[in-house]
């Protein structure tokens, strides 16, 4: 057992890794949802060119997409760590500061990154909706909210799905980066396991395989969604 496969099994690392994978998926999904909310709002602002706000959105997307994710994570963690621990301990929840806090900041950081990419995808999807459709809906006297729900949103969704697939794949891979600030997700667990058993090769290999499974399964899921939307569109 040169690489310590036995120690992985014996030391109870399998459950730890699975728990880590669950945290990774939880961070990924929450960040993706947060990013989508940001993306729809900012995408609409950018598409409609609402003047002062669109400048802000432009700044946000170009900074976040041009600066390494790791740097953004460091910024959010280091700048908030004192503040949040002070607030939480003042209310007497010192224990919460260690477990829940890292998760929340991780979701904010990865969500902000994912949101910048989603914004561009959604803006692109909105831009490809023919103007005539919206004008026609307006001519029929539909209110703005119903135009969005019935005309813009369904078309946007179908065009945006392949782009959002890419965003999701990057988001789930970016969650590995929050391990550097201590959240116990897949990568962090592998790091701890590698250090305590002194068998880094097998632990990082397992981590790579788990990430690969996550990305391959979600790829299949997105392919399914794309097919579903295509069939409905043809009818």
């Amino acid at each position: 057992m040169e690489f310590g496969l036995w120690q992985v099994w014996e030391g109870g690392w399998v459950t730890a890794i699975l728990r880590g994978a669950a945290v990774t998926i939880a961070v990924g999904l929450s960040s993706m949802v947060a990013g989508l909310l940001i993306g729809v709002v900012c995408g609409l602002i950018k598409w409609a060119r609402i003047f002062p706000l669109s400048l802000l959105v432009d700044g946000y997307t170009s900074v976040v997409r041009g600066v390494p994710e790791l740097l953004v994570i460091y910024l959010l963690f280091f700048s908030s760590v004192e503040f949040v621990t002070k607030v939480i301990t003042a209310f007497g929840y010192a224990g919460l500061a260690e477990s829940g806090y890292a998760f929340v900041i991780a979701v904010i950081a990865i969500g902000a990154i994912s949101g910048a990419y989603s914004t561009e995808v959604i803006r692109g999807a909105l831009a490809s909706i023919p103007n005539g459709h919206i004008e026609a809906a307006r001519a029929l006297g539909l209110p703005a909210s119903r135009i969005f729900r019935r005309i813009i949103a369904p078309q946007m969704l179908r065009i945006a799905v392949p782009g959002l697939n890419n965003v999701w794949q990057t988001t789930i891979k970016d969650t590995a980066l929050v391990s550097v600030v201590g959240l116990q997700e897949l990568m962090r667990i592998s790091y701890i396991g590698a250090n305590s058993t002194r068998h880094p090769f097998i632990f990082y290999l397992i981590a790579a395989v788990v990430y690969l499974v996550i990305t391959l399964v979600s790829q299949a899921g997105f392919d399914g969604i794309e097919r579903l939307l295509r069939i409905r569109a043809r009818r």
Partner: protein
Amino acid sequence: MELIQLAVPVLLKGLWVTAALTLVSVLIGFNLGLGLALMRLSSNGLLAGFAKYYSNVFRGTPLLVQIFIFYYGLGEVSLVRDNAVLWWVIRDGSRCAVLALALNTAAYTSEILRGGLMSVPVGLVEAAQACGMSRVLRFRRIEFPLAIRQALPAYGNELILVVKGTSLASTITVLEITGYAKRLMSQTFAIFEIFAIAGLLYLVVNLSLIAIIRLLERFLMRHESQSRQGLSAPRSDESAAVS
């Protein structure tokens, strides 16, 4: 003001490391990627299969995991430890980061170049064949120039991803912009200011890369701007005939 005097020289030192990491890994990664793209498009099933799995594995796992496998993991494999060349690469953080980055960007580059190569019209390749061009000459004169023209915008995005990827080298003891920035953040507690300076350096690098790509694009497309002025009508006939 004091802070700027302290931080800027340190971060500029990191800038050179970031630039060097990017340059070397892009040079290696582009060539590997081109090779992989050709393998993927070859009629040999084994080669095409290898290239496909390679690109799926490297695109499906986080770069951080790849860097950690190379830096921490491979040292454990006796085959690697006993091989002088491999051990030389793995031993050092920055060489290891270059290896991981190059292999990673090769996977993405191969997908981009494959798209470019597939967009080359079959008729043009057939015409070159009919002219008696050899396979190598055909690739050099016809397929590659057309493919790179098509792939350049996407490749520009990939270059920016490589620049951003070099920040992960800071996790394996390489001090580049992000590594220095983290150190300065914990020393000075001026977190936002350090982030702003480091971020600005990255933006400068990325914007100049975009500018270079734009110039390259205009250089490669120089025939377009000339023909569009006077010869637009015959050109559209020509493209209709091809399709």
